[in-house]
């Protein structure tokens, strides 16, 4: 519990610092000026999403191999958090694009890939909603999750080969890329802040799922005991006979 509170305070401080840095410490960008500062939250939300989805992939494989419910919990929590980060990215992106490019959206490589990704993982959640048996739900959504994760690089590659308008990678791309050092530090701070928030929310959602599983087990236990009691009462004579 204490560790949790400590972590929460650190995260709150990080958020505050990151926000301050993004708005006031980071230098103004040449062409886009203030609006470019959305970048300090746009990129970190993608990093957070990608991290969450990697954990989901691990959880999906682990569940199939071990059949332990905690991995299923880890999976669904991660997908919800991942979809949330994706939504944030899909909203902040157009908010940045509109003043800078003049358009809210375009069907270039990255945007299309991301949109598909968003739909894929929402489908994961939909699939879970439509499956009733808990074991089937866990197994089949794990299988779908693995397929979805394998698909992501393929979607990205196909879209990249196909079209591109999104700015070429700024940090690790080809010529002309590279970030101002102060911008780089602010970015790092913002990545840390958003990442930590994501982890916090992920842990909570994971705990919620584990608690729900516990609740279901208790309900099952109560039900089976009452069924047993009913049987005992009704078949007492038969039991004596055999």
């Amino acid at each position, binding site marked *: 519990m204490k560790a949790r509170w400590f972590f929460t305070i650190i995260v709150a401080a990080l958020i505050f610092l990151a926000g301050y840095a993004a708005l006031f410490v980071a230098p103004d960008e040449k062409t886009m000026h203030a609006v470019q500062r959305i970048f300090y939250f746009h990129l970190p939300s993608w990093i957070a999403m990608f991290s969450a989805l990697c954990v989901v992939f691990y959880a999906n494989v682990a569940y199939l191999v071990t059949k332990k419910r905690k991995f299923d919990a880890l999976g669904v929590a991660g997908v919800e958090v991942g979809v949330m980060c994706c939504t944030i990215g899909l909203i902040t992106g157009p908010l940045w694009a509109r003043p800078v490019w003049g358009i809210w959206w375009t069907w270039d490589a990255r945007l299309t890939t991301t949109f598909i990704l968003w739909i*894929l993982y929402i489908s994961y959640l939909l*699939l879970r909603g439509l499956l009733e048996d808990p074991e089937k739900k866990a197994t*089949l959504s*794990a299988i*779908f999750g693995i397929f979805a994760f*394998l*698909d992501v690089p*393929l979607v990205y590659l*196909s*879209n990249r080969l196909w079209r591109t308008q999104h700015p070429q990678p700024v940090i690790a791309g080809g010529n002309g890329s590279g970030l101002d050092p102060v911008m780089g530090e602010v970015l790092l701070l913002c990545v840390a802040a958003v990442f930590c928030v994501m982890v916090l929310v992920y842990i909570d959602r994971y705990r919620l799922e584990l608690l729900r599983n516990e609740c279901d087990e208790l309900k099952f236990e109560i039900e089976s005991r009452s069924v047993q009691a009913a049987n005992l009462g009704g078949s007492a004579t038969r039991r004596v006979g055999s």
Partner: protein
Amino acid sequence: MSTVRAAGILLGKELRLEFRSRELLSATIIFALVVVVLFSFAFDPTASESRRYGPGLLWIAFLFAGSLMLNPSFSREQINETLDALRMAPISPFAIVLGKMLANFIFMSLAELILVPVFAVLYNISLAGIVWRLVLVLMLGTIGLTVTGTVFSAVSAHARMRELLLPLLLLPILTPLLIASVESTASLFQELPALDRTWVAFLAGFDIVFLTASWLLCDYLLEE
């Protein structure tokens, strides 16, 4: 019994089942035709537009029709719980899945065999000189569609609203396949047709990745 032999026997069963009534095949073909015709109403394409948008239309028709056709693959087995019987047979789970994949591939290919010439006629696209290359592209695309579709048919068979769920799960996963197939087909429909090696390699890669994933996951797919 070896996997391949078992798959072959199951394939025979699926084919016999379908050719008794042929209802799935005819429904698939008619549906794809409807999509193709609707497109002409919605867009009224000129000759050059047909060549530009034709490949996209063709593959969307195949994907939609395929999504509908793949549904009964596993949901059919639930009516008399025949899947349990299959599971108890001394064959590997992959044999069951492979048998169904092969059957679906054959059905889809038959549908395409009829649809592509009809499409070429309706939109005045000449197939002269590109037939075999087109067959290659169609085959690679159809493999990806049926491999992934069969697996997802098994996944969605247990869920409610499976007719809606299968396309919902399948179509986003198949977007790379769609792009690659459309680009490959488009390069063949050009004035100077040429087989785009990059995209064809991509298609082959897609097929391999998903076939391998299906093979690795089929035990879990079919378990009780």
